[in-house]
């Protein structure tokens, strides 16, 4: 009984820690993005609220909370209210299977630094990321607004297309790690991260993951100069904030997943594992922000051509080559 209670307590504690860290990170990731974008554009970025604008996320959050939650006429109310939650929820759920470091012991009790250590972790992340598209598509469809609808349709098509490339880029990882368990995948990179042993898969993964998060240069669902704000045109207040937080949680998730799949997880010299993991996780959002500052948005046909004519064949070929090499090496 004590065991079960302890287990539940530990589980709750882990969940609380993960949620707090992820939300805090997401909030400050917004600030980091605004500051960094500012500096990339030779300006300051937010620096009015608190020292260096450090309280800006809190001010933003307060503002969003206090704003009126407008539900426009003609929307499908239930779906309209649920859609933002799907985006944020799917991203948060994924953290259930993300390990943050090696298992350690407290009072001889092994404590895994993961909420749910499952054998199919890779598939779970993959599946949950594919659910996020419902938030975008439904939110766009239900807003009863042609721009939102176009954004939703674009989002759905884009995410389905790039999910395929994403999946194909992860197959070699699973093949080389011989497991779908994330902890196992990290252990398999103890010597050499997959980013180096699987450069093509890494490249495909980064590009398609970028597309999955709907960020520049793949932000066609919300392309401001064509669709106002795309699928979240009609959203305001906290619901809009949920879309927003979902995007940044997704960025952190993407960082975690990239770190686990390709950058060797918490493996690294000198520094403790959790610090290595944190550094690798944060490196990816910073890269995404840098990309946002550097690259222009793709045209829609270019997006589709890149996905279907370039990434998918490349991924298939990569699998074949990897399989052949593995078979040869056996």
């Amino acid at each position, binding site marked *: 009984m004590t065991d079960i209670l302890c287990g539940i307590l530990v589980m709750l504690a882990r969940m609380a820690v993960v949620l707090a860290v992820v939300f805090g990170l997401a909030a400050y990731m917004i600030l980091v993005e605004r500051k*960094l974008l500012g*500096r*990339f554009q030779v*300006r300051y970025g937010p620096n009015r609220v608190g020292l260096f604008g450090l309280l800006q996320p809190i001010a933003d959050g307060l503002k969003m909370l206090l704003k009126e939650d407008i539900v426009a006429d003609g929307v499908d109310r239930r779906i309209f209210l649920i859609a933002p939650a799907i985006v944020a929820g799917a991203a948060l759920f994924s953290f259930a299977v993300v390990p943050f470091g090696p298992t350690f012991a407290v009072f001889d009790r092994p404590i895994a630094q993961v909420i749910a250590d499952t054998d199919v972790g890779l598939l779970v992340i993959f599946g949950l990321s594919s659910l996020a598209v419902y938030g975008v598509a439904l939110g766009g469809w239900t807003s009863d607004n042609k721009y939102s609808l176009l954004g939703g349709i674009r989002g759905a098509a884009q995410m389905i297309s790039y999910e395929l490339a994403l999946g194909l880029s992860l197959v070699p990882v699973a093949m080389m790690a011989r497991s779908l368990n994330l902890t196992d995948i990290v252990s398999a990179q103890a010597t050499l991260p997959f980013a180096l042993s699987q450069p093509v898969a890494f490249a495909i993964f980064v590009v398609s993951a970028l597309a999955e998060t709907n960020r520049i240069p793949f932000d066609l669902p919300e392309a401001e100069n064509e669709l106002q704000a795309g699928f979240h045109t009609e959203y305001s207040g906290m619901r809009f904030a949920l879309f927003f937080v979902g995007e940044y949680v997704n960025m952190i998730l993407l960082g975690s997943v990239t770190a686990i799949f390709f950058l060797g997880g918490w493996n690294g010299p000198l520094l403790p594992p959790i610090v290595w993991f944190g550094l690798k996780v944060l490196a990816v959002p910073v890269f995404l922000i840098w990309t946002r500052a*550097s*690259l222009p948005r793709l045209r829609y046909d270019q997006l589709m051509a890149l996905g279907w004519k370039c990434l998918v064949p490349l991924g298939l070929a990569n699998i074949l080559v990897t399989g052949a090499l593995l078979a040869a090496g056996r």
Partner: protein
Amino acid sequence: MEEKKDKTGLLREVLDGAAGLAGSYAATLTHLFRRPVTEQYPEYKRPMPARTRGRIILTRSPDGKERCVACYLCSGACPVNCISMQSEEGPDGRRRAAWFRINFARCIYCGLCEEACPTLALQLTPEFAFCKDAIEDFVYEKEDLLVDHGGKDPDYDFYAHAGVAAGRPKGEHIGEDEPVDVKSILP
């Protein structure tokens, strides 16, 4: 239409594309280490050039009298019709504005009025930040517009050049002869 690309062409295209991407990443990266050009406005106020077009004033001539003669040229030049006035004859015989009104809520600070002003009375100042809570407060009357200095050109005095006898008699303006004696028979 698509030409069949040979191998080297495709490779070149890929390399070019990669170089282009890298170039843009490099550009943003160098920006990251540059000093931001933003001016921290309320703390730091850039000294504006004297000819900046901001709030409008009505200046005075060196002798301290109103320069404005209410000639209606500024209101005629104003493209948004934000200037209105009524001229009258003042106690000293000078033409002046009975009332003079500028609606700054309508003003576009184009400076055409300043250009039109023949007496250098109406001038635009660098002051650009004068916010109000109510839009009616942007209607400035002559009392609000009139200042006690000569603005950008403090030495000019219209009535020293004009030939009309207001303040000083005929023949005593700059570059004038004595009045003709119409009843003289001298050649």
